[in-house]
């Protein structure tokens, strides 16, 4: 039961891949989300336009379609680009091979960046304006206002949304096995086909995800407690 018919190590390394992929995608989408939210709230009309088109299209199209679109197209574009570079100068040979892991991170980051943009936009707007004006009045530069005033308070409002997005990203990594990444789902499928016990191994993969989502739920509750220090809750 517990040595998983000898497939324990494969499943474990698959789980590690899943975790790495989700954490890296989270980081990428977090950064894109911050940039997108700043663009959406900026005064420049073209910036707002680009950010709005980005979030609208990405959130209107299924992630699997986008994943296949980006995964297959990106490789072709990169090949064209390296061909172009090679035609420019013959001494080097450029090549940008793209493995499923990298393209998985890029795609998931790009897709969930749109969701983070909306989360952060709402959270930025939730910070009282007077706080920012007070910070400006103290002579803080915009960068300092962001780092000292806006970001710490914004995080409190954004945390529930971040937690939600994290859970969605974690579950979306299962799709990356469709483009050939050997994550925990792929490992479970391989083990199941080899031993004719598909049901058992898929249940194991499901249990891995269940543990991951439950643990991250616990972490999220702790984080929420940390970021809402000093906030009085209504006693009901």
């Amino acid at each position: 039961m517990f040595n998983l018919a000898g497939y324990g190590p494969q499943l474990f390394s698959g789980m590690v891949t899943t975790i790495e992929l989700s954490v890296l995608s989270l980081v990428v989408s977090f950064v894109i989300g911050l940039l997108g939210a700043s663009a959406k709230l900026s005064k420049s009309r073209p910036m707002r336009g680009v950010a709005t088109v980005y979030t609208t299209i990405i959130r209107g199209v299924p992630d699997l379609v986008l994943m296949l679109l980006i995964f297959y197209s990106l490789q072709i574009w990169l090949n064209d680009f390296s061909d172009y570079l090679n035609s420019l100068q013959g001494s080097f040979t450029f090549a940008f091979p793209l493995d499923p892991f990298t393209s998985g991170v890029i795609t998931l980051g790009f897709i969930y960046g749109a969701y983070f943009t909306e989360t952060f936009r709402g959270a930025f707007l939730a910070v009282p304006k007077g706080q920012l004006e007070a910070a400006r009045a103290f002579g803080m530069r915009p960068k300092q206002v962001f780092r000292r005033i806006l970001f710490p308070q914004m995080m409190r409002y954004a945390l529930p949304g971040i937690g939600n997005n994290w859970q969605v990203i974690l579950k979306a990594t299962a799709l990356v096995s469709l483009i050939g990444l050997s994550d925990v789902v792929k490992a479970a499928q391989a083990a199941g086909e080899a031993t004719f016990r598909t049901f058992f191994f898929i249940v194991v993969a499901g249990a891995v995800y269940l543990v991951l989502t439950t643990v991250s739920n616990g972490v999220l509750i702790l984080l929420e407690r940390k970021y809402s220090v000093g906030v009085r809750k209504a006693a009901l």
Partner: protein
Amino acid sequence: MIDILQNYWQALLYSDGYGVTGLAMTLWLLVLSCAIGFCLALPLAVLRNARNPVLWFPVWLYTFIFRGTPLYVQLLLIYSGIYGLDFVHHTAPLADFFRSGLNCTILSFGLNTGAYTTEIFAGAIKETSHGEVDAGLAMGMSRVTLYRRIIIPAALRRALPAYSNEVILMLHATTLAFTATVPDILKVANDAYSATYAPFDCFGIAALIYLCVSFTLIFLFRRTERRYLAFLSP
């Protein structure tokens, strides 16, 4: 791009000449799984708010498991896992049911969206203000009447924004059907890609169709919200 559209527009929209495919199949999957999810969620949401642990615990476990694992894993479990079990293989009706990719897809989609919808409805039921319940009880309503006339209609209205979100997410989730050989939009696009090796065109066309469906759904839900949540408008 043009020749892909010329060759595949029929398959992308309604049929490849043998059966229902493309947009029609995607919409069928969406409607059927949402209907199953809705019918499942309504009684389960009531049980989820029950005081007796024997009633709420199984529902909690169901939503916990189905919301905590990826839909792809659930689909794999039902499509390739269950069919591989010995007793299913040797029981004729079960084997017939689980052999079909479409049946397995609809079953797993329905169970999945049912879990999310249960939590949405349960949250809305929980938010019922106690005054409404007191008023209903004071009118001499029985528990069943109270639920039927007061709690559930009001809760469904409150749940509408979250539920519309869930339907959009379900539309996006139907793309997984192509892994179980169901010929939805993505499957047709994938076939076109295998034939032409033009990923951006093929998946781009699919993305545009999904975008149109998403926008149509959002538009319809906005109108529904304007009608049923009119009392909330400023």
